[in-house]
C-alpha cells in the first residue's frame, strides 16, 4: 500500500509505531505536490517550514508522548492567517499580505502536531462556486481536468482528492466545503455556526462563515474536527459549548435512525441520474435499519435570494478594511485619499468580489435597508424554522449536495446567476446555521457525487456516525482519480 492513499488514522499508527518518520512522510507528500503542480491546488508551498516542523514532530514521537495527529501533513485554505506566511485569500488585493498572526485554527493544528505543507487555492475571498474567481487561476478537478473542483474551497478538495495531502481545512459560507468535497469525491464537514473559531479566518459573511475539515473519510473528519473545534474568546460569536469526543460514537448502530427527505430537494431541478444515485445511497441506509420520512422545506426556494442579500451586505462591510492604507494592495501615485481608496480597491478586487460589494452596498444604502437586509433576515428565520420543524421528527436530513456533478471550466462564468442557483441545496443550511456533511456516494460519467447529511445544532458527532457507517458498507470514499493512484 502506498503512503499517500492512507488515512489520518493509518498514518498516525505508522508514525507512532516508527514504521516511517514524519520527515519521510512530509517529504513524500511534498514530492507529490511538486509532481502534480499543474493541478494548481496550492497557492504557496511552505517546504522549509514543513521540514523543520517534521523534525520537531519526530523528536516528540521519539519521546513517546506525542498527540495522535503529530507529524501528519495537512494544508490550510489560504483564507486562514498564517504568521510570517503569505495569506492571499485568492486575491490580488492580498497577494503581498504576510499575516502578522495565526488564525486560532492554525494554532490549534500546530498544537495538535500536524505539519502544514502550505496554503490552498480558493475562490477570491471565498466568493465563488468553481475556484475560477481565484487571482491565481482555478485549481483543477483531479477526476477530470476539464471540470471545476468546485468552490470556494476548491484547492483543498482537489489536493485531498489527488492525495497530495491527507486532509485540509476549508470554510463554508454557502456550501464552500460541501460542494467542492462533492465535486472531488472527498468527505467534508461544515460544523454548526460558532463551533470552530473564526479568529484569523478572513471574513466574507460573518453570520454565515464557518471553518471545517475536508478529508478522505468521516473517521478522519472526526479527528480533524476534534483538533479544530472549541470555544475561543477571540471570536465574539464562538459557541460556549463543550466539545464531545467526535470519534466515540462512530460505530453506533443506525437501526431505527430516522432520515428526513425534503421533497423540495428532489424536485424538477435535480438531474435524474443524480436523483437515482442519491436514492441508491438512501437504500444503503434502509438496509442498515434506518427509517425514511418525507419532510418539507416550503421556504427552501427563497434561500438563494435571501443569501444574495445577506452575504453581499456583510461582505461589503467586511471588505471595507481593504483600503490600501494599512495592508494589502495600494495603487501607485494616488492623487488624493479618495483616489487612493478607489483605485487600490478597483485594482485589487476581481469581478465577482466587485459584484457582491456593489450589491451589498446597494442593499445597505439609505432607504433600502428594510426592503433588502431586514427582509432577508426575516426569510432567514422562516428557513431556519423549516429545518427546526423537520428536525423535531427526524434525526438527520439527507439529499444531494449539488443538482449535477462537477460542471465544465468556463461553463457557468458568463452567467453569474446560473452559478448561484447551483448552490440551492447547500445555502439554506448556512442560513439556518446547522451542521452538514458531504459524503462520496457514487459517480455519474466518472464524476463524483456527494450525499448531503444535515443534522441538528451541535450534532456533528451524529453526522460523523451516520457518515462513517455508510463508509463501512461502501467504498466510494476510497476511489482515487486516475493518474493519482
Amino acid at each position: 500500500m502506498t503512503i499517500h492513499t492512507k488515512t489520518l488514522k493509518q498514518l498516525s499508527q505508522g508514525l507512532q509505531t516508527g514504521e516511517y518518520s514524519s520527515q519521510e512522510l512530509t517529504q513524500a507528500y511534498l514530492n507529490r505536490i511538486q509532481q502534480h503542480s499543474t493541478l494548481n491546488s496550492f497557492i504557496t508551498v511552505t517546504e522549509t517550514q514543513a521540514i523543520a516542523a517534521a523534525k520537531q514532530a519526530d523528536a516528540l514521537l521519539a519521546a513517546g508522548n506525542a498527540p495522535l495527529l503529530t507529524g501528519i501533513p495537512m494544508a490550510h485554505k489560504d483564507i486562514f492567517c498564517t504568521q510570517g506566511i503569505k495569506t492571499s485569500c485568492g486575491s490580488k488585493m492580498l497577494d503581498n499580505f504576510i499575516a502578522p498572526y495565526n488564525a486560532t485554527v492554525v494554532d490549534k493544528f500546530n498544537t495538535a502536531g500536524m505539519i502544514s505543507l502550505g496554503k490552498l487555492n480558493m475562490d477570491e475571498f471565498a466568493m465563488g462556486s468553481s475556484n475560477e474567481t481565484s487571482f491565481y487561476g482555478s485549481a483543477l478537478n483531479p477526476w477530470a481536468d476539464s471540470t471545476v473542483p468546485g468552490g470556494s474551497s476548491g484547492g483543498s478538495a482537489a489536493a485531498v482528492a489527488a492525495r497530495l495531502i491527507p486532509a485540509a481545512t476549508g470554510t463554508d459560507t454557502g456550501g464552500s466545503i460541501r460542494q467542492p468535497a462533492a465535486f472531488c469525491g472527498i468527505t467534508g464537514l461544515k460544523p454548526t455556526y460558532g463551533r470552530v473559531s473564526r479568529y484569523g479566518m478572513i471574513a466574507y459573511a460573518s453570520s454565515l462563515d464557518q471553518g471545517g475539515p475536508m478529508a478522505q473519510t468521516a473517521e478522519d473528519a472526526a479527528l480533524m474536527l476534534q483538533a479544530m473545534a472549541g470555544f475561543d474568546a477571540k471570536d465574539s460569536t464562538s459557541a460556549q459549548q463543550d466539545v464531545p469526543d467526535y470519534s466515540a460514537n462512530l460505530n453506533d448502530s443506525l437501526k431505527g435512525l430516522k432520515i428526513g427527505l425534503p421533497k423540495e430537494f428532489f424536485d424538477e431541478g435535480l438531474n435524474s441520474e443524480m436523483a437515482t444515485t442519491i436514492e441508491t445511497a438512501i437504500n444503503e441506509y434502509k438496509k442498515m435499519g434506518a427509517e425514511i420520512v418525507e419532510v418539507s422545506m416550503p421556504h427552501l426556494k427563497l434561500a438563494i435570494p435571501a443569501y444574495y442579500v445577506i452575504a453581499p451586505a456583510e461582505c461589503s462591510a467586511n471588505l471595507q478594511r481593504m483600503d490600501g492604507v494599512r495592508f494589502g494592495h495600494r495603487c501607485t501615485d494616488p492623487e488624493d485619499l479618495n483616489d487612493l481608496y478607489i483605485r487600490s480597491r478597483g485594482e485589487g478586487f476581481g469581478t465577482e468580489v466587485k459584484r457582491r460589494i456593489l450589491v451589498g452596498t446597494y442593499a445597505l444604502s439609505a432607504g433600502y435597508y428594510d426592503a433588502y437586509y431586514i427582509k432577508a433576515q426575516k426569510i432567514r428565520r422562516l428557513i431556519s424554522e423549516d429545518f427546526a420543524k423537520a428536525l423535531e421528527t427526524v434525526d438527520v436530513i439527507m439529499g444531494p449536495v449539488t443538482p449535477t456533478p462537477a460542471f465544465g471550466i468556463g461553463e457557468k462564468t458568463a452567467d453569474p446567476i446560473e452559478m448561484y442557483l447551483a448552490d440551492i441545496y447547500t445555502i439554506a443550511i448556512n442560513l439556518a446555521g446547522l451542521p452538514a456533511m458531504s459524503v462520496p456516494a457514487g459517480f455519474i460519467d466518472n464524476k463524483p457525487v456527494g450525499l448531503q447529511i444535515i443534522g441538528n445544532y451541535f450534532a456533528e458527532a451524529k453526522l460523523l456516525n451516520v457518515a462513517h457507517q455508510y463508509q463501512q458498507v461502501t467504498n466510494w470514499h476510497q476511489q482515487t482519480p486516475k493518474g493519482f493512484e
Partner: protein
Amino acid sequence: MSLTTDDVNKIAYLARLGINTEDTESYTADLSNMLNLVAQMSSVDTDNVAPMAHPLDTIQRLRPDQVTESNQRDNFQAIAPQVEEGLYLVPKVLD
C-alpha cells in the same frame, strides 16, 4: 428591478470601488439580474416574522473591561504600504 449605469457609478462611489468605464454596462446588467433574483423574497409575507441576525439567536458576549492586547504597532506596520515614524501615510487631506 433595473439599474442604470448612473446608479452603478453612484453605488461604486459609495463603496469607493473603482470600475473600468468599459465594464460599467456589464456590472449594470449583472446587478439588475441579481436584484431580480433577490426580488423573489417579496413572494412571501413576513410582516409578523422577527429578523434573524444570528443562527443561534445568542447575544453579544461581554468581557471584563481590561487591557488584554499588547502593543504590536511595529509588527502590524511592517506590512503597511507606507509608514513613517509609526504613522500610516496617506495623501494630504487638508491643505
